[in-house]
């Protein structure tokens, strides 16, 4: 019952945040340069044509009514029509989401399968030898310091210049040609993973180091437990909250569109689409894309809290006691 009320609070809080986010996005879209009518009709339209468009889209009504209408249609899954292609935004997103999702899956996979173990291993080894700490710091620092567009450019250059077996670009859907799809996704996924793995490993290492000095770890060592046992039974679960938080941040970041990677490798995903939309002032697409990214983020945050509550029994209690 207490857990339920905590949940209710958490969900309400997410809804409030989402509501504020939507206001922010709506306001931002109204502030974008070039009126809606001008964008639709081009700069050479006559005042009469503009008035007609304004009336047609309800732009002459009060801002509140406009916001309410936008929110209403957005809630029903209708994000309007892309002005460039004339197709519904939802349809356009449907085409591009799989690409982004696939890329995100690779990234998250890398983070979980490589980043987390790497972080645990380096943290557990940190106590064993001294002096190696600086080198570890340098390497993990390097991982988060190489921007995707720099590493990506290097990879593009190397693979375009020399015949290294993989080609750059030439995306094909998985359904059409699985092998070709994987081949085209491998490089962008690898570039993307470097940053994601480094971030995850750093956070994991920090979290594990914090747990390792807790008295219950000392108590476990004093009982003669083996290191592997201590890590599996005590360390991982106690270090899990920062780890799943960073995983959720990384996932949201990836699902929001690994914009730069998609752009660089010319993948037809959400990120590329969003960049094009801003360039062409396709505001309905920008609005919807940003809102979607924010929704993904907020939902992931909620899921994270849920998982954290399950993994650490104190978490729910602590979150509940926060407002006292």
């Amino acid at each position, binding site marked *: 019952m207490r857990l339920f*009320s*905590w949940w209710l*609070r958490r969900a309400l809080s997410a809804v409030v945040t989402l509501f504020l986010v939507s206001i922010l996005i709506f306001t931002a879209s109204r502030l974008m340069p070039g009126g809606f009518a001008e964008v639709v009709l081009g700069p050479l339209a006559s005042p009469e044509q503009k008035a007609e468009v304004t009336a047609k889209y309800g732009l002459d009504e009060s801002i509140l009514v406009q916001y309410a209408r936008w929110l209403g249609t957005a809630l029903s899954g209708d994000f309007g029509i892309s002005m460039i292609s004339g197709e519904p935004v939802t349809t356009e997103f449907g085409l591009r989401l799989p690409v982004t999702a696939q890329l995100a899956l690779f990234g998250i996979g890398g983070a979980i399968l490589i980043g987390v173990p790497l972080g645990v291993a380096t943290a557990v080894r940190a106590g064993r030898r001294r002096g190696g700490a600086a080198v570890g710091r340098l390497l993990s620092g390097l991982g988060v310091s190489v921007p995707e567009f720099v590493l990506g450019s290097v990879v593009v250059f190397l693979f375009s210049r020399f015949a290294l077996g993989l080609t750059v670009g030439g995306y094909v859907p998985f359904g059409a040609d699985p092998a070709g799809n994987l081949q085209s996704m491998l490089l962008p996924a690898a570039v993307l993973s470097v940053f994601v793995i480094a971030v995850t490993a750093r956070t994991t290492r920090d979290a594990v180091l914090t747990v390792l000095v807790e008295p219950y770890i000392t108590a476990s060592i004093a009982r003669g437990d083996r290191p592997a046992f201590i890590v599996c039974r005590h360390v991982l679960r106690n270090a899990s909250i920062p780890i799943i938080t960073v995983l959720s941040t990384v996932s949201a970041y990836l699902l929001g569109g690994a914009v730069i990677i998609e752009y660089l490798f010319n993948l037809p995903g959400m990120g590329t689409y969003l960049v094009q939309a801003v360039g062409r002032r396709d505001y309905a697409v920008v609005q919807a894309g940003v809102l979607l990214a924010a929704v993904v983020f907020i939902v992931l945050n909620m899921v994270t809290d849920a998982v954290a509550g399950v993994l650490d029994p104190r978490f729910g209690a602590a979150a*509940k*006691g926060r*407002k*006292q």
Partner: protein
Amino acid sequence: MILELDKVSVTFSAGPPWRRRQVPAMREVSLSLADGEILGLVGESGSGKTTTSMVALGLRRPTSGTALFQNQPFPKRRKQLAGRMQAVLQHPQWSLNPRMRVGQCVAEPLVVFGGVSKAEVAKRVMGILDQVGLDPSFADRYPHQLSGGQRQRVSIARALITRPPFIVFDEAVSALDVSVQAQILNLIKDLRAEYAFAALFISHDIGAVRYVADHVAVLRHGAVVETAPAAVFFGTPEHEYSRQLVEAL
């Protein structure tokens, strides 16, 4: 009377807004403290000692009941109390601002009180440092260069610099080692003889309370179960719980 608590109750609210629970921290606590008297307040953790000290210092308003300081209700503006009450608190590692020199720390209450020239402040700081048994050179040191006992001396110097009529010692010697604790207890006794301040001496250590207090009050579950002059209390404790405490001595 320097401090009078009359049936003071304090409750905290907990839980979500739609199901507020009231958690009592003090239940109708009545205490009074005469000028120059030391009242020892004993109790386990969670018995309401800290809340009582917060009320006595005017940092928390009673939910019900009245608290009078020098026969008047606590003023709205904290500034009006400046120089009239001070506290020596529990944690030696956080009792002094690590970014301030000892001299600045000790001078702070006097500077806040105002109306004293810089030269006078410096003179008073040196004087009070000497009183608590610290060399004048300590004024230029930072807290991390001091031991726990020395820090507590600095805290006492800071509390005394405005010569307040009332001081709260909240577990002021609990974190100290036995050999240093005795020094600080003796210091408190000596300074009280000289400055004649009244004090609320809060501790879970019944031995320390016996050593410095004139009166003793025992708190349990937020309520006072016994108050008595120290000699009477330690001779013939009335309440069952008090008897256990005295026996454990």
